[in-house]
């Protein structure tokens, strides 16, 4: 898979490098604006500095969520996947025009959604989308928000088609060869994405767009909410997969070692393909109208989804240890000192991994069906996902940029010390912010609210005070914003730098345990797609049918119909899904 050529990516694939750079540019612009909104929010809701109205807080919050969790992450992912396909198949994309077409559509869609959101800050405009990242109906946004979103989703489908096309052409010349690891990861992630986005596409195209245009009078709120979570849990893995891909394929190299096991990396990505989607109901543990049995199925699936992440933890650390030992590390713990801590790309990813371990724990609490009562919709939840998407993903992407961007620009990183300072600031800032958020959540402080205090009661925390927690959140948020500023500054000056013959060492070493030792069935993408679809059908058919039947039909508003799904049928699905889960466990 490695091309040990001395020429960098931009020299070998200038057209692809241009597409990747364009994607990164949009991603970084979104990162800057989104981070600024984050700063305003963190200071506002902790009552430290208030420059906006509390009613405008939710406009900022929508912008923060959409720009960072959708625009930044997914544009970066598209750039990164485009790079990975060209690099690992060692061939340019089939059509330059097509690549620019999906990029253009994606940017247009994002711009429309952004206009709708920012319109909320201009009262006389009549355009707003203060519906937050989750856009639960019957809260309504301006139609261009939903239309922008639909365009964005379609553009990601086209991007996936671009990469599948490259793979198909490559396959013709490479009969019988194993799929290169990075391509394998891109393809499995995109298959998962195709399955997952059906939910949001149906929700937006059939319900929300006609409803916001006034063509249909109402929607079934539980149905659109369920369709949203059908899509929005797998999106978590859509964020995470590029980060995992970097941990599997780039982090070992940055550590001075080699990937511990290629076959296990494939197994992990397949498990994500299978289990990412039939779990969305775990965001709806406290929703009325969904039977407990369905919630239990979603929980068992979610818990088994821990497996690929725990395996990743082992493989990633083992690859780092391999690097450390090749660099002369010894002992049970002392090898950690032999890692290249002065490299911001490495250190950023390592920090991201440490905080992901902590975020993994709070995620396990979220996933527990009844313990969810403890923390549901409290600040604990943003505390959790700022560790996962906000650090495991975002910090890995920033760290990866220190290594990727020089390959695209042909220039050297402007400053390594600033990069190192940046990732460390992110780590410290996030520790302050998310730790305090978790604690505040246990004290019952809700998420998504503009005010720190209520009139009728006070929040209490057993250790320390609520005020200290607020200060920690504000301090952490400020450090995070400064960290983004440093990052963007470093990226800007890097791209303006002088051309260099050898801007970065981009060679990727072969895994210690290669693909040749693994069963070929791992590469049978058609079969795995089939199983993934089957699991989704099993997990979702009955709950969705029950929601449509009980909640007054597809569009709500109708007369409620009594529940008809019998308990016996419910039990049968539980047993069936349980059996499939066990089977998947055995295959793994």
């Amino acid at each position, binding site marked *: 898979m490695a091309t040990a050529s001395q020429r960098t990516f931009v020299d070998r694939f200038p057209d692809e490098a241009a597409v990747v750079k364009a994607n990164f540019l949009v991603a970084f612009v979104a990162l800057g604006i989104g981070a600024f909104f984050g700063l305003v929010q963190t200071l506002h809701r902790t009552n430290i500095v208030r420059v906006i109205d509390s009613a405008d807080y939710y406009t900022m919050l929508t912008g923060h969520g959409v720009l960072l969790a959708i625009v930044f992450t997914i544009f970066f992912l598209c750039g990164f996947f485009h790079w990975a396909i060209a690099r690992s198949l060692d061939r340019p994309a089939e059509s330059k025009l097509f690549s620019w077409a999906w990029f253009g559509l994606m940017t247009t869609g994002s711009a429309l959604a952004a206009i709708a959101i920012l319109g909320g800050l201009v009262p006389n405009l009549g355009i707003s989308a203060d519906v937050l990242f989750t856009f639960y109906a019957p809260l309504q946004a301006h139609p261009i928000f939903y239309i922008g979103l639909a365009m964005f989703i379609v553009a990601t489908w086209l991007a996936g088609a671009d990469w599948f096309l490259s793979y198909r052409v490559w396959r013709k010349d490479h009969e019988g060869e194993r799929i290169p690891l990075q391509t394998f990861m891109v393809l499995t992630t995109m298959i998962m994405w195709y399955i997952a986005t059906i939910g949001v596409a149906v929700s937006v195209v059939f319900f929300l767009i006609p409803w916001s245009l006034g063509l249909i009078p109402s929607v079934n709120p539980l149905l659109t909410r369920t369709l949203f979570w059908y899509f929005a849990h797998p999106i978590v893995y859509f964020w995470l997969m590029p980060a995992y891909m970097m941990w599997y394929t780039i982090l070992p190299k940055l550590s001075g070692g080699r990937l511990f096991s290629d076959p296990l990396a494939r197994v992990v990505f397949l498990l994500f393909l299978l289990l990412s989607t039939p779990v969305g109901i775990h965001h709806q543990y406290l929703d009325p109208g969904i039977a407990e049995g369905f919630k239990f199925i979603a929980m068992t699936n979610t818990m088994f989804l821990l497996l690929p992440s725990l395996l990743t933890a082992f493989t990633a650390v083992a690859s780092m240890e391999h690097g450390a030992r090749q660099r002369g590390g010894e002992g049970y*713990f002392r090898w950690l000192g032999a890692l290249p801590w002065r*490299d*911001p*790309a490495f250190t950023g990813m390592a920090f991201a991994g440490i905080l992901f371990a902590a975020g993994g*724990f709070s995620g396990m*609490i979220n996933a527990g069906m009844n313990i969810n009562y403890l923390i549901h919709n409290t600040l604990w939840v943003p505390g959790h996902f700022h560790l996962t998407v906000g650090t495991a993903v975002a910090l890995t992407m920033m760290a990866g940029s220190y290594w990727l961007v020089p390959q695209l620009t042909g220039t050297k990183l402007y400053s390594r010390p600033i990069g190192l300072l940046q990732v460390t600031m992110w780590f410290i800032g996030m520790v302050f912010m998310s730790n305090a958020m978790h604690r505040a959540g246990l004290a019952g402080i809700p998420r998504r609210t503009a005010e720190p205090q209520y009139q009728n009661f006070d929040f209490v925390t057993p250790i320390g005070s609520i005020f200290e927690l607020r200060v920690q959140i504000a301090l952490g948020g400020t450090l995070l914003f400064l960290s983004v500023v440093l990052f963007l500054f470093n990226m800007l000056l890097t791209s303006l730098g002088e051309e260099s013959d050898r801007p970065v*060492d981009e060679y990727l070493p072969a895994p*210690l345990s290669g693909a040749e030792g693994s069963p070929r069935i791992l590469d049978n993408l058609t079969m795995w797609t089939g199983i993934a679809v089957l699991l989704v059908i099993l997990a979702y058919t009955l709950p969705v049918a029950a929601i449509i039947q009980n909640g007054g039909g597809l569009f709500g508003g109708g007369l409620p119909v009594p529940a008809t799904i019998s308990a016996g049928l419910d039990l049968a699905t539980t047993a069936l899904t349980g059996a499939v889960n066990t089977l998947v466990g055995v295959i793994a």
Partner: protein
Amino acid sequence: MAVDSTAEGSAASPALRADGSGGVPADAATQNSSSEPPVDSIVGTADDGIVRQIDHDDFDPVGTLVLVLIYMVILLSMWVFMYFIEFLGRGLTVVG
């Protein structure tokens, strides 16, 4: 104009490189005078600090095992604490 003004193409080049077939000897021009990593190295040059090649059969990730076992103990104890003390110890709970 990069602050890290490494001599182009020298320190940045791979000192030791391995692929599936085994170690590839570094060419003399790229060999550093010492085994220390270059102080001013650019991003992604950890392999310049490689002092030995460890192959698949010689590598036991014992440090990894120790770390993940510690993590497992933390996970379990935190789970027990969160479930039985924080959660079940709360005053009002939804009961059947």
